[in-house]
């Protein structure tokens, strides 16, 4: 029973750490399916995280000053709106560079990542003077866990009650949003006009152009969706999972999301599974550290246990490399991704 409890907690942790990965990976899916390679997921998420924390903090300050404590939950939503707007702006910058000016999409992505890693701290220090952090949000100013009806009542019921109260209930709204985003993305990509055009424009933009559809228009729409989702991911990091922006708080999650996207072969459901796998590995690694009594073991075992968290940490990256090399399956990117569309005779 105790093991089951541990397992539930592990799954719960997996869900929590997977959320930004899922959002960012689905964001990347829209962009890359349209033919715009995006290695700037990290930067957009980071920028979104800062925007959310800063806006939410300022808003909750104002509300508190005006004596409107009751309206505090609105601050979180203001933060979310700020994160989404800012991230969409960045996505449009990437879009203009890639679509309008036929710029190198890798370069543009790198630029956005670096720009955001600098700008968030620069502004953070200038505005809040806390070494790049934003001030702690009041409890009301962030996204709070939603406790499902009856969760506490059934918490003691073995297995099912556990599952309900620990795993399903008690997350904040952005978690549910993230996991809703996947079926929604699936539906959009495979069941709507937009999705059909999206899948086509990343494979053969000329075919889309000759069908009387604007290639640039499709791609701009795709990067906007990408930016919005990255913004939500960022807001999750700074106003839901924690209560402040911390310097470099994305810590490579954008790249893990990119890895998951590649691992999921640019398809929504496999991408979700890859995110959950990577999130699970992350959760396991976090729990492995320092959880064993090493005194009684041999040096070899000790060395292996020492190395285990690092191996697990590096596993997603290694898996993607192996996948791309065709050692475990094959991942083929949308054919036109990364190539600026220039009309040719």
């Amino acid at each position, binding site marked *: 029973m105790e093991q089951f409890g541990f397992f539930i907690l592990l799954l719960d942790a997996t869900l929590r750490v997977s959320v930004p990965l899922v959002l960012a990976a689905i964001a990347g899916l829209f962009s890359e399916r349209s033919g715009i390679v995006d290695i700037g997921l990290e930067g957009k998420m980071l920028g979104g995280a800062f925007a959310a924390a800063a806006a939410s903090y300022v808003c909750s300050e104002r509300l508190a000053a005006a004596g409107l404590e009751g309206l505090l939950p609105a601050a979180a939503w203001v933060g979310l709106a700020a994160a989404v707007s800012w991230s969409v702006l960045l996505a449009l910058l990437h879009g203009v560079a890639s679509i309008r000016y036929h*710029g*190198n999409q890798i370069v543009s992505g790198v630029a956005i990542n670096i720009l955001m890693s600098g700008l968030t701290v620069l502004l953070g220090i200038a505005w809040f003077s806390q070494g790049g952090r934003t001030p702690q949000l009041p409890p009301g100013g962030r996204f709070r866990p939603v406790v499902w009806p009856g969760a506490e009542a059934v918490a003691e019921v073995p297995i099912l009650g556990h599952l309900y109260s620990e795993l399903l209930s008690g997350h904040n709204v952005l978690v549910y949003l993230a996991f809703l985003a996947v079926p929604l993305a699936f539906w959009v990509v495979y069941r709507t006009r937009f999705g059909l055009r999206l899948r086509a424009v990343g494979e053969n933009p000329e075919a889309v152009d000759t069908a009387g559809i604007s290639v640039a228009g499709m791609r701009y729409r795709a990067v906007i969706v990408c930016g919005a989702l990255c913004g939500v991911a960022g807001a999750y990091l700074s106003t839901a999972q924690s209560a402040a922006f911390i310097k470099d708080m994305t810590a490579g999650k954008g*790249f893990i999301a990119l890895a998951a996207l590649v691992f999921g072969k640019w398809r929504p459901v496999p991408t979700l599974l890859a995110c959950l796998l990577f999130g699970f590995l992350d959760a396991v690694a976090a729990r492995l550290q320092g959880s064993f009594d090493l005194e009684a073991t041999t040096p070899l075992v000790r060395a292996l246990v020492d190395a285990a968290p690092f191996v697990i940490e590096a596993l997603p990256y290694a898996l993607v*490399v192996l996948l791309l090399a065709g050692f475990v399956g094959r991942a083929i990117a949308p054919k036109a991704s990364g190539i600026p569309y220039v009309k040719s005779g």
Partner: protein
Amino acid sequence: MATADAGFGLPRWAVNGLLPLVNLVAAFAVSGIVILILGESPVEAVVALVRGAFGFREAWGYTLYYATNFIFTALAFSIAAHCGLFNIGGEGQGYIGGLGVGLACLYLDVLPFFLLVPVAIVGGALFGAAWAWVPAYLQARRGSHVVITTIMFNFIAATVMVYLLVNVLIEPGQMSPQSRDFAEHARLPAMHDMMGWLGIDFPRTPLNAAFIWALACAGLVWVYVWHTRWGYELRTVGANPDAAVYAGISPARNIVRAMVISGALAGMMGLNEVMGVNQRLLLNFTAGYGFVGIAVSLMGRNHPVGILVASLLFGALYQGGAELAFEMPRVSRELVVVIQGLVIMFVGALEFLFLPAFRPWLQKRRQAASAAAAAAEQE
């Protein structure tokens, strides 16, 4: 690389000189706006920055020390770019290269100084090259894109280094994950010492002999890329792989060759940081220099001369930015990172932003020139 054949029929001086310069100005203009938003004066900031970078002799030392790192990582990026590869893994290759240097200094310090230096250089080059070899091999033989694989290798490198420093290389009895200090003779001589030998007084700075090696590497890269058949083959693969195959040049072999050289050069950044400055192995000594190399190389149009100039500029930004942060309370060091991002954006991704503004003028010049040439031919 997209930049390889995108001259739009403009003269080379415009593509290699005018456009980057205009873009650089644009990047700085936006940076100025950021400073305004922070509530400071951009003009004063520029003055403080330039003074901080060049205003006193110590500043020169720091500026050139930063530039040393950038020369190495930018040369690394450029040589891969000439082969049509986007090596975004300079950071990881430099990190692992530094490990190679460090291992040589820690475990081979029975060697005398004059042997240890070349051994450390070879060690750094080999380790950096090995870290680039895997993605290169996978691209050449299995078709996996180096962009993604080198990004992944950056993260793997970071994990490997943390593991090694926390569990293996840590100085016994110490808490912080660092190796022991290198022996006296296992360090690169600092510039102030070398100047001292010549009887010149130079302030203490991190600038060391690696700077001279960086200049030499720039020269070597220049010779290799433009003045050897191997460089010719490398550039052919980068510019037109079909023509390379037609000419009997193996794209796969050149991809591996370019990446291995690239990784070795990135590894030299580890030489500067580990053997020259820190004189022990520690975490995160790469500090993003691998990524700055991308900006520097783009700005320098992947040419060693351009890279030297751009490295100096970025070195000055790094050093001047540190001084600026002291003088202006509302501006922190990260301003430099912002400027760096803007430079990459404008010079790299938006390189043709201002082309429409210049094209009519340039075409007019061109037409005038060709008319003159036609007239000359008739005579």
